[in-house]
């Protein structure tokens, strides 16, 4: 029962989605939209599991003083400060008590981590109790903060957007730009005319890369541009289509195997 029921569910929902595809009627659409919503909602619950996993792995590193354990503090601080900023906002212009509130929450979390990793539990527990009191004190007595986000005042939590704009975006863009370097090093390392396949790869890449090179004699540049256009439009189209057909059939076959319960590897051994 424990093992078979999930596969029965897979079959039922899978078969339903196949039938649903042929029924344009509103009621079928209605159920379809429900199901898609559910998948998203379950995903958020799973995200909580993920965050928990990130937290335990980091704390575990600190506790056992594994290599580079100190950096786990950076991860945890980044994680918690974003969560706090994402769920609260300051009312009005004054930073005053709001920043104390955020800081006391952060120290609370820091002390709690210390409590779980350190031997001297009493001291850290006491300290976290203290910061909890401070945070609660501000939370109940001061009205300089609120818990809302979708409303226009929550969106203007400057520190949340600042973190997104000045920490997330630059790192993301820089990671992305590393591709320029790696594309160069990959080309250098791998484009060797070892055999016929590697040679074809190499020649096609060089023709396309030279498509706008002006320093060539005998009207070669124009020829290069035309050839690379042709390469991108004709053989490329053919190869893409062949791959798409293959992938499509692979997806279809795997989906079918999943629905029929033939393929069970994704849930451990069935």
């Amino acid at each position, binding site marked *: 029962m424990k093992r078979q029921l999930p596969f029965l569910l897979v079959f039922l929902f899978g078969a339903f989605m*196949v039938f649903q*595809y*042929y*029924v*344009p*009627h*509103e009621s079928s659409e209605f159920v379809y939209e429900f199901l898609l919503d559910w*998948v998203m909602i379950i*995903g958020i619950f*799973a*995200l909580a*599991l*993920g965050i928990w*996993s*990130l937290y*335990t*792995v980091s704390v*575990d590193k600190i506790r056992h003083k594994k*290599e*580079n354990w100190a950096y786990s503090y950076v991860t945890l601080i980044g994680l918690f400060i974003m969560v706090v900023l994402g769920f609260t906002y300051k009312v009005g212009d004054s930073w005053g008590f709001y920043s104390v509130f955020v800081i006391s929450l952060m120290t609370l979390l820091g002390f709690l981590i210390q409590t779980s990793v350190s031997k001297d539990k009493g001291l850290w527990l006491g300290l976290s109790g203290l910061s909890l009191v401070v945070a609660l004190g501000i939370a109940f007595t001061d009205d300089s903060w609120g818990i809302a986000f979708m*409303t*226009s005042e929550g969106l203007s939590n400057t520190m949340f957007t600042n973190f997104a704009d000045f920490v*997330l975006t630059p*790192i*993301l863009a820089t*990671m*992305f730009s590393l*591709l320029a370097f*790696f*594309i160069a090093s*990959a*080309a250098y*390392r*791998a*484009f060797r005319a070892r055999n016929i396949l590697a040679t074809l*790869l190499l020649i096609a890449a060089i023709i396309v890369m030279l498509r706008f090179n002006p320093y060539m004699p005998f009207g070669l540049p124009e020829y290069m541009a035309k050839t690379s256009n042709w390469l991108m439009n004709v053989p490329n189209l053919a190869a*893409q289509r062949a*791959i*798409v*057909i*293959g*992938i499509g*059939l*692979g*997806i*279809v*076959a*795997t*989906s*079918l*195997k*999943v629905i*029929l319960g*033939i*393929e069970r*590897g*994704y*849930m*451990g*051994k069935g």
Partner: protein
Amino acid sequence: MKVKLLIMVVMMLALSSFCFAQDNATEAGTEDTDTTAVVESIILPAPPGNLTGIDKPNDHGHAAILSWDLSPDDGAGENSVLKYEIYKWVPQLMLDINLVRDSLSVIQRILRNTTSGITEGTQADSMKIVFEKYSRDELFDIRNTLIAHVKQENTGLAEASNSYPENGAWLFVDKKPSGTKSFVHIGSKDFKSAGFVPDFANLYYRVDAVTIDGAKSSSKVLGPIQTSGQWYNTYRTPVVFSVLFFTLLTIYFVREARKGADLYVRPLGGIEAVDDAIGRATEMGRPILYVLGLGSAADIATIASFTILGRVAKKVAEYQTELLVPTYDPIVMTVAQEVVKSAYLDAGRPDAYKEDTVHFVTQSQFAYVAAVNGIMLRELPATNVYMGKFFAESLILAETGALAGSIQISGTDEIAQIPFFIVACDYTLIGEELYAASAYLGKEPVLLGSLKAQDYAKAAIILLAVIGVVLAQFEFGAAFVNLFEVAN
């Protein structure tokens, strides 16, 4: 009590601004022509002829297809037609409901603090002034009552439309450039929306030919027609046949395989390398890194990757090597934990399984890459396996892995990323090979059976394409090609 009173106010407001609304309705279509310089003599264009309409087939209802003959003055004759305007007749009840709908949207904007876009002096503005006097709690109540009211009134629409042409008005629907001969009016299915078109109610349409001067002449009125949803989409019949074809083929070959038929599978370089790579890792005493990519558990590439992960994990458990599986998607993490755990169980070493073998990193593409890069350079895995869905990060991962000196095996169905894996990895499974690999690794006859079915489907495609190419040289070939067009 208060709420009842408010409904009255809204309805009063609705009635008082009714004339205003009606003006709005008829003028909506002409907003860009009414500014035209006055022309002394207006010559009316010939009206479009032969207006016909049907319920849009194979849909969820609420939509109709109209078609007409071009006005004789469109592209010929006086050549004066600029556009066609489509109008729909609606009963008075619909106009009333529309007013309530408008007030609902105003309330919504007040609740969301987005009233800044409302221009002064409009109907919405006067509604805003009325509603802003109430507290949020009251507004929520008003809103709920109004929605219930709209819902209640909507049930009467079908009957109300029987009164045509009395008790109603023409509403502007859309405009189309000259030369257009048909129009699909897709109404909303949401009764709270202004574009709502009720099913099983009589609908009346007319089409006006409009000249540059704004002179217009109307076609004959079409109607009544009714819309409805269908229970079977006939456009998709080819898909039914291919589903049947493919399912039967798969089931047949799986049965054959179960009976013990000998099925050949051509060797796949990347997959044969996996076993060697695990052995190598054991010799070197270094871990194996398995990356499932950015796909969610819903992506079939990820599901195929789970099967491969299961095989790798089992081997790893047997050889007593370390396995690292950082994941991007929390659900993928959950599934991967199941897979690895049961693989260790199968290998008879459940004690060696650690909960953090499979761990979550973050759900941000490049943060995930940064972390995996870090793992590669610090743990120095002997082998990196990338299987699943990959995007721009493919090359960053593969190059960093090469820098760390790992053997790299990859497989993805993202066509744009295959070139980078081919260039930077030692072995690459191209597209479909990834799916085949999961069957191949299992060496289970049932899985191999479905590979056989896939191959027959490919043979069918080639056969049909060859026939099609030959037929395409002749006039009647088009009919054959049309067999494979799925309209919607």
